């Protein structure tokens, strides 16, 4: 156990991940590293010896994979599902290993492990050579910015320690990986199960002169030299313990800084100088990438969480539209136009994909056209954010180039994105300021402009009720306009069908048109099935507070089918219409509609009166 007694001042940390598929022996390899570096304790060993008999796949030998497969489901199925983090250390380095599953269905888990790693060990089964999965793992590593690769050709014992087999596999890999931009590729022939070339040199392969896997991991230089890059300081928390102190706490993402240096707030352009670099251990004369510090400025300028301090000569572009890669991680597919929340640095802002430029086939790296991204799919997309954001390409800076998308309803982390470049359209289109605004137009006609959004199944009575409401408003002298499937689908949206993607785009366009009519000072009555919560929310977000009233016309589907004014249900049930809401396409009922109208047993006039009462309560005489 020589490792345990030595410690060095320059002890450093290497984070790496292992990628391989079910049978490549990833978990066994990590188990071997822990076992050989003497980091498995007697009681842990006793526990896995017991478990090996119950779940193991290695006969009477200890199944080292059981050291790392922690969740009950994984042990029962003999596979790794989630990312497991393992720790070991040698006199030279401390290691954090992300053990990630290799199946295509777990691409998101692998990307999670890769996001924090600076090196990847890619396992290849010596009997099988470079496979589809090898390409997939390598591509994901490359996409997430890993630049140093170890190709561990495992189970070399099963090909009789044959050099030709090893050389052929390495040749195949290097050829394939030439496009992936790796800085180093180091191949090592190993047997994880028996330990050859893992931590000690194998006597079975005299032809191999390279380092053991552990020797390489202990010595490889993976430094990114973040301190030499442009200064980026995302403000995480404003520290104001008393009236005399106002500091900006955060971790320096890149570059270095010293008191007296000039800094600029990236988004606003306000400038000041660093006064102090405060820490609990006293002020620092300088600080660099990786340090968690608190900066104070010489001037009282406006700085808040989410702002990024940079140097004026190195300001990043600030844009609300950009292009980048997106890995989709949610069961529910990503649809262009749908609204999500984006977190980039310490900024949270609404964001949507405006178009998918192409989808990448993770197995072949071919580019395909796509109209949605499903779970584990990767696309190159254009994005539109709710506010201008300082951006760097992901390859240059993760702090300003990596982002996640979150589902607005479930709060699940749905997508992981990497900025490629800002889109120039964002900086070239400026809003014109007209003197006559919405309030002026509304005042002229004495109106309270707003959208009444009627949602419900086909045949629920949306248009009928909206029609009665509009008549009453018209009689009362209120300027109105109605938008419904008939006047929209035949014109503005005639190019759209009824797939989920097209429904999203249809509602997006309707929402933008409704917003223009509200700007013109009108009450806009919109009657659309609008089956998805996300799109109704998107329209709501386009408008100001109080300008959107959601009216849920709640009619049981049996009643709609019995009524079937256009004969559509009959045709849908006969299979003549696809994607029909309520038949083979879902309707997500509103959870917090301003008005929930139960129509059963009531006349349309009675239902319309309920809407009118609401308008009167809001101060609209009608």
């Amino acid at each position: 156990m020589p490792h345990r007694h030595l410690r060095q001042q320059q002890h450093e940390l290497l984070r790496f991940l292992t990628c391989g598929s079910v049978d490549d022996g990833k978990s066994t390899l990590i188990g071997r590293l822990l076992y050989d570096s003497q980091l498995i304790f007697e009681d842990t060993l006793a526990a896995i010896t017991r478990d090996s008999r119950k779940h193991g796949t290695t006969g009477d030998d200890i199944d080292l994979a059981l050291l790392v497969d922690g969740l009950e489901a994984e042990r029962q199925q003999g596979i790794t599902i989630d990312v497991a983090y393992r720790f070991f250390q040698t006199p030279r380095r401390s290691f954090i290993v992300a053990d990630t599953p290799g199946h295509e269905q777990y691409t998101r888990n692998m990307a999670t492990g890769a996001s924090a790693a600076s090196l990847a060990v890619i396992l290849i089964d010596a009997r099988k050579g470079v496979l589809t999965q090898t390409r997939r793992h390598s591509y994901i590593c490359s996409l997430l910015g890993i630049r140093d690769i170890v190709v561990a050709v495992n189970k070399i014992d099963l090909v009789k320690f044959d050099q030709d087999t090893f050389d052929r596999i390495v040749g195949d890999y290097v050829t394939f990986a030439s496009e992936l931009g790796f800085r180093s590729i180091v191949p090592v022939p190993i047997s994880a199960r028996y330990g050859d070339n893992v931590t000690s040199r194998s006597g079975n392969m005299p032809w191999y002169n390279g380092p053991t896997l552990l020797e390489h991991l202990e010595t490889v230089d993976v430094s990114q030299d973040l301190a030499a890059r442009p200064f980026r300081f995302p403000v995480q928390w404003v520290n104001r313990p008393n009236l005399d102190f106002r500091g900006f706490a955060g971790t320096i993402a890149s570059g270095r800084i010293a008191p007296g240096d000039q800094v600029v707030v990236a988004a606003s352009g306000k400038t000041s100088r660093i006064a102090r670099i405060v820490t609990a251990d006293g002020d620092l004369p300088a600080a660099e990438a990786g340090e968690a510090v608190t900066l104070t400025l010489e001037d009282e300028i406006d700085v808040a969480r989410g702002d990024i301090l940079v140097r004026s000569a190195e300001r990043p572009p600030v844009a609300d539209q950009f292009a980048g890669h997106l890995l989709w991680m949610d069961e529910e597919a990503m649809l262009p136009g749908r609204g999500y929340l984006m977190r980039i640095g310490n900024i949270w802002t609404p964001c949507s994909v405006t178009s998918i430029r192409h989808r990448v086939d993770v197995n072949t790296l071919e580019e395909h056209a796509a109209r949605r991204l499903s779970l584990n799919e990767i696309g190159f997309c254009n994005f539109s954010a709710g506010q201008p954001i300082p951006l760097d390409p992901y390859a240059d800076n993760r702090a300003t180039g990596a982002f996640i998308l979150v589902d607005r309803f479930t709060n699940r982390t749905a997508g992981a994105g990497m900025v490629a470049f800002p889109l120039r359209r964002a900086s070239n289109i400026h809003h014109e300021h007209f003197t006559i605004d919405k309030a002026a137009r509304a005042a002229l006609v004495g109106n309270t402009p707003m959208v009444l959004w009627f949602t419900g199944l086909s045949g629920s009575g949306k248009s009928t009720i909206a029609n009665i409401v509009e008549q009453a408003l018209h009689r009362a002298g209120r300027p109105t306009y109605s938008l419904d499937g008939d006047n929209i689908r035949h014109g503005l949206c005639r190019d759209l069908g009824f797939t989920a993607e097209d429904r999203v785009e249809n509602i997006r366009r309707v929402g933008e048109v409704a917003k223009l009519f509200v700007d013109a000072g009108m009450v806009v009555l919109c009657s659309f099935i609008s089956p998805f919560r996300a799109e109704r929310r998107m329209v709501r977000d386009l408008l100001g507070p109080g300008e959107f009233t959601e009216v849920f016309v709640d009619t049981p589907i049996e009643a709609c089918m019995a009524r079937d004014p256009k004969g559509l249900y009959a045709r849908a049930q006969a299979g003549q219409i696809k994607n029909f809401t309520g038949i083979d396409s879902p309707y997500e009922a509103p959870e917090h509609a301003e008005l929930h109208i139960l129509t059963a047993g009531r006349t349309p006039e009675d239902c319309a009166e309920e809407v009118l009462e609401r308008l009167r309560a809001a101060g609209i005489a009608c």
Partner: protein
Amino acid sequence: MSSQSGKATLTPHLARLEAESIAIIREVAASFRKPVMLYSIGKDSGVMLHLALKAFAPGKPPFPLLHVDTTWKFREMIAFRDMMAKKVGMELLVHTNPDGIERGISPVASGSALHTQVMKTEGLKQALDKWGFDAAFGGARRDEEKSRAKERIFSFRGPGHSWDPRGQRPELWNLFNTRIRDGESIRVFPLSNWTEYDVWDYVLAEDIPVVPLYFAKQRPVVKRSGTWIMVDDERLPLEPGETPEMRMVRFRTLGCYPLSGAVESTAATLPEIIAEMRAARTSERQGRLIDTDEDASMEKKKREGYF
């Protein structure tokens, strides 16, 4: 790390762990309405508290400390807890499950599983609900136990504090998803990437106070199930033939005293503890009687709301 910085004693590895943990702690203060830091008095809690003090200097951490007291902690732990709260000047909240007291739940009479369930897990949930905390820091580390190895740094809990290992959010880069709805909460583990070695190295480097029970001393103990149990007060009933004897022992982990096994040791200083740990052949949780109940028992406890 520059040598003038005052952190010259930290290795680059420890300095990086420290910075990462400070960022996590600040993130919680910035993102949640009402956070709390669980303080369980042990070495990990001590390190976590030390990091919180560093994160907000020159101010104080903008959240209170919470101790869920099972009434079976070592007396020295309670004295240490009160001394530390006073020393750091933070509010200390203490909660004990009143139902458990009423039912007479104790590790001796009820067994470790029921005691842990009622006094720790239920007590914790009561306390979080009572004060309406939406984020709670815990000192758990991924190297402690297998199901912890897959835990997120920001661990999402549904209504009723439920933990679904399959429903956890992917955690990429340091872009934590801090969004929750009413009734949901987040448990945060700033020490996720620390090992037992790192904790002790850091305690030594930063001169962090720890409970004296970690240091070897002559203590009254009895041998049970192959481990030394300390007779901390008269509540521990002695079995026929058992007589407490004085032994030179110390604790690697601390919990309720009838559930925490001591090891024979002469390590009475931090460097001696570290040397002993590096030569040890058993894991620190070996002294914890609650983990050995059954396979995957930690995963089961966590599903029920245990930290």
